[in-house]
């Protein structure tokens, strides 16, 4: 059983849960178990060919799985899987209709 840390932008898909426990022998299985429990997370995490989306970083404990074995990285009992998409917020209001680089 691993603990999956859910980023704020995915918590709508987990009913507000910031941490979800999920079973699996590797990172792929754990994330698919997460998607079984909370189906809304599936399309955010995986592309149509079942690979991890490029804009989602996944860490096993503190290590990026890209430098380990990706979705095949073995998960041990008690490990933490961190799901982390990039965030851009700098604390200014969103200004619809004003596309393009806006420093704030």
């Amino acid at each position: 059983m691993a603990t999956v840390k859910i980023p704020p932008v995915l918590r709508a898909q987990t009913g507000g849960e910031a941490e979800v426990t999920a079973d699996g022998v590797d990172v792929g299985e754990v994330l698919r178990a997460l998607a079984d429990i909370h189906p809304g997370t599936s399309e955010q995490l995986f592309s149509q060919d079942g690979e991890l989306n490029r804009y989602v970083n996944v860490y096993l404990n503190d290590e990026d799985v890209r430098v380990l074995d990706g979705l095949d990285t073995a998960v041990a009992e008690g490990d933490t899987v961190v799901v982390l998409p990039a965030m851009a917020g700098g604390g200014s209001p969103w200004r619809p209709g004003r596309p393009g680089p806006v420093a704030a």
Partner: protein
Amino acid sequence: MATIEPIELIRSRIEEVDPADAREEIGDGVALVDTREQHEYDEAHLEGGTLVPPAELADRIAEVVPDRSQRVVLYCRSGDRSARAADLMESELGYEDVASMAGGIVAWQDAGYPVVAAQGMTKDQRMRYSRHTLLPEVGVEGQLKLLNAKVLLVGAGGLGSPAALYLAAAGIGTLGLVDDDEVDASNLQRQVIHATDRVGMPKTESAKLTIEHLNPDVDVVEHRTRLDADNILDIIEGYDMIVDGADNFPTRYLLNDASVRTRKPVVSASILAFDGQISTFVPYEGPCYRCLYPTPPPPELAPSCGAAGVLGVMAGVMGLLQANEVIKLAAGIGEPLIGRLLLYDSLGTRFTELKVKRDPECPICGPDAPEIPESEMGRFPDYDAFCAGAAVG
């Protein structure tokens, strides 16, 4: 109570080196220790000299020189206090190879050798920054580095406001502010550099007013514009490092690519709701923003603070962590967040640290990244299209 021995007796049993010989060996694995008082050290000291006042010698010398077999050269004003300190270190503290510089810093300066003087630091500045200069890690040298540092803040918003306030208080000599927005009442819950009576005022102007009120030492440069591919190189050129508090992905990628090309460190943070993340990107020393995030997320995974809300205090925490990184980089102290991504969960009050490695396939800083000829330095991809493309792809 021990009687104080005559200085001649002490001199006869310790090693003394004259300034010329000391100068020869300093820097060559020799620990150089200044055995005067803080205010003397602040006025002028030898480069690389660490202050350990006489009264603190027994307690502090082991932290400055942990290896008792290391060669140590001590100096003071005229050579007396350092002679006594050398004697104490050898006779009671177990040091094996200690010398005192004869004639002290006075003889050193008489010989025409350079010192680190509190140049550019007025009496007022010595008072203002005394709690910095008292820190051995910062000292006058570190404060002078801060006073000479030029830091660009991209965004005078939730992150830039607290960062700019504390960087100004710390005496960062030049603070550039990039923002084309105006102060809105909804900003004031977190953008603490602005004020209620400045709603409607350009943010750069409002920030400049606050900073000048706080610390007249700081030269504030307003860049009342948006960063884009056409102006970014001109804007960042005059700065040593950049604080990224941008609210959108195109600016973050553009800033990354421009800063890697010009080899300028970027202290990058982002905030949303109750969570923040921060890392320090030093080109070619550690990963860049694209190593961490090769492509931007789609819009549904990238809501803005305006859409999702943000805890003002959390923005302050993250902005101050950015300021902390800037101070360390500028003073050359501590351990910056290079290759580390720090997450802050303000609801749980938990910090999580993740490792970030350089991506061997990074199109910007990887080994196979194309060389950019001088004529192409200012040409960047269309970032709106890049980010919009990623959003639908």
